[in-house]
């Protein structure tokens, strides 16, 4: 996989998702449940405004001094015995990983959930090279066995499926014969993948945040699979986005406090793994060899742009859970690995307007995302600004450019506006095509009265009431 998750054009993606009632019910229920849990968790913590201001300032400080923190992290991680590699792009990151696996003659890898490995298309490359790769996060596992379905959310990848669908997939692909009770489904998968954990030569993980001061990489998970991935195999590969650093454990505490609450409405995740170097002589478990691959893949471009602060993002996914558009189309409607408001703000600058500018249309500019972001990424403003750049660079269709130019000319001139609004009453005669058809497919158009407000106001005292 890469950032692109669907070959379909935008409107077809939306049509397909809007016609999927299972997904729409699942996402709506998940949004309502998780948002209520999030709000309760922050209410209990108190002073959300101060927390997010502090968390945002930490992230902003790191971005401001990223060169310093990256080199400090690399130095401290190496001192702890890890191999650190800077990968400029997806190809460099995957090539490095593949080389390690070849050198070690590895046959099987177990993975915990990681968006950056999805971004660089790691699984496909490893499988093409003849390796078996097993996703061990329950949601990711389900997607993997369901003919490589795509994640619809960055924290809860199978958010678009309900448990009945989960049962069907397990039955069809793995011979499951039980019911759809979540505990039973989970128990079945646990038994299946235990063998994989024990057989795997390599564990592959992402990194929620790396601590520069100590050279530590961290993982927060809820299922315990991340802990297994980082303890059983002899070799561990950690892929981390270049910006995912905090200075010290003091800042990590604050970031994780808002991350767990924003992502799943919990004070803490069930598991928090802190890994500093490979296993030492006194350690009971852990990898003998630890490789940390720091992935740029467009992030330097974001850092140098006016959208730099989008790199504050801690990947909690709460903007998606809050978004009223995401609610009806899930991550799949966006056709991008990073969907929702974050996707709209990040992907066009991470991977280019040419392919991804269009997703900025999937927003009604309601502003809900900006209000819940726990690190104060100005998502609304960034989406608004992307649209300005896209229009200015003439990336929209000729028809839209013409209509908008015409509209601008009319409202920019009092006389033209007066003439156009006099004609508006005849709109009922207009053919139901183009923009009007988009409106009338599900909605009635209001009838436009003969008398405009301005006519009434001018005639007050003379003629009296509006007809």
């Amino acid at each position, binding site marked *: 996989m890469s950032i692109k998750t669907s070959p379909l054009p935008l409107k077809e993606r*939306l049509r397909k998702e809007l016609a999927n009632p299972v997904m729409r019910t699942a996402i709506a229920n998940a949004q309502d449940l998780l948002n209520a849990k999030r709000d309760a968790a922050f209410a209990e913590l108190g002073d959300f405004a101060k927390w997010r201001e502090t968390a945002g300032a930490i992230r902003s400080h790191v971005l401001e001094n990223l060169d310093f923190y990256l080199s400090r992290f690399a130095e401290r991680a190496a001192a702890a015995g890890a191999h650190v590699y800077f990968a400029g792009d997806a190809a460099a990151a995957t090539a490095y990983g593949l080389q390690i696996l070849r050198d070690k003659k590895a046959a099987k890898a177990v993975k915990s959930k990681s968006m950056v490995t999805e971004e660089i298309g790691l699984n496909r490359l490893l499988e093409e090279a003849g390796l078996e790769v097993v996703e061990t996060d329950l949601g990711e596992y389900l997607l993997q066995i369901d003919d490589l379905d795509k994640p619809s959310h960055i924290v809860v990848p199978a958010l678009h499926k309900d448990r009945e669908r989960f049962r069907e997939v397990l039955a069809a692909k793995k011979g499951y014969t039980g019911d759809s009770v979540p505990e039973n489904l989970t128990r079945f998968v646990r038994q299946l993948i235990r063998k994989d954990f024990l057989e795997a030569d390599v564990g592959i993980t992402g990194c929620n945040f790396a601590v520069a001061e100590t050279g530590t990489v961290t993982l927060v998970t809820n299922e315990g699979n991340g802990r297994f991935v980082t303890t059983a195999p002899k070799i561990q590969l950690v892929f981390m986005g270049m910006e995912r650093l905090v200075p010290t454990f003091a800042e990590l505490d604050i970031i994780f406090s808002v991350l767990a609450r924003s992502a799943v409405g919990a004070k803490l995740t069930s598991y928090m793994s802190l890994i500093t170097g490979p296993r030492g002589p006194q350690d009971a478990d852990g990898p003998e060899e630890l490789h940390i691959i720091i992935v740029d893949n467009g992030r330097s471009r974001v850092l140098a742009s006016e959208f730099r602060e989008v790199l504050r993002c801690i990947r909690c996914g709460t903007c998606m859970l809050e978004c009223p558009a995401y609610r009806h189309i899930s991550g799949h409607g966006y056709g991008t690995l990073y969907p929702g408001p974050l996707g709209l703000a990040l992907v066009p600058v991470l991977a280019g307007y040419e392919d991804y500018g269009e997703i900025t249309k999937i927003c009604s500019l309601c502003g809900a995302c900006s209000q819940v972001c726990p690190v104060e990424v100005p998502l609304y403003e960034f989406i608004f600004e992307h*649209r300005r750049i896209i229009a200015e660079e003439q990336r929209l269709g000729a028809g*839209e450019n013409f209509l908008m130019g015409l509209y601008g000319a009319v409202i920019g001139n*009092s006389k033209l506006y007066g003439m156009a609004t006099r004609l508006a009453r005849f709109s009922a005669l207009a053919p139901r095509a183009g923009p009007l058809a*988009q409106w009338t497919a599900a909605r009635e158009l209001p009838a436009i009265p003969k008398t405009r407000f301005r006519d009434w106001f001018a005639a007050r005292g003379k003629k009296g009431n509006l007809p």
Partner: protein
Amino acid sequence: MSPRVSFFATCLADTVFPHIAADAVRLLEKLGCRVTFNPRQTCCGQPLANAGFHAEAAAAIRLQLEVLLTDPTDYVVCPSGSCVLQIKEYPKFFKNRPDLQDKARQLGDKTYELTDFIVNVLGRTVPGARLDGRAAYHPSCHLTRLLGVTKPPLALLEQVAGLELVDFKGQDKCCGFGGTFAVKLGALSSAMAVEKVENIRAAGAHYLIGADAGCLMNLQGIIRRKRYPITVLHIAQVLMAD
């Protein structure tokens, strides 16, 4: 002395919903304001700006800036949170023109959304309004989230005799209008509107009340298509009902 108010009608109310604008004017007059309407005004330019067409919106923005600062009034009042938001954002459009930016700030400072103006500037209640039935209030996004006007509409509606306000599921969620969003991605926009309308209906509301004609037009489009017995009203119409 009675406050002098320049009324900014909005293009939508001027053309499609003149009753809303007329009731807003009557309401302001009832509360003792002297209301003027400069007929050179057109549209705030938000549909263009939100779609990215800032250059195309520039002429309209300059025109409103000039027109709304022409009349010697104390305030500019407008019956739409969304259009007020756009006017308050005018300084952003003149990053390289400090002179115009100053004027834009001046305009932004004196511009108020109708209910915000009544409650927080005039400090008034609206006596004598009556509407019998259950009403769902839609807190439009630009008004509540971006302008921060959350309480004034409710404070005013609570004074309306006979009116029972009902809460409904997803009340604070966007109705899916979003200006050109509603026609660019009409199917998605409609899906958002349908969910909102179904929730309003489930709450047993006879009326849907809001303070932004754009959102109301969107929701009314669904309500009429589905032939639901829900009457859609702008808050100015409710406050002038008796």
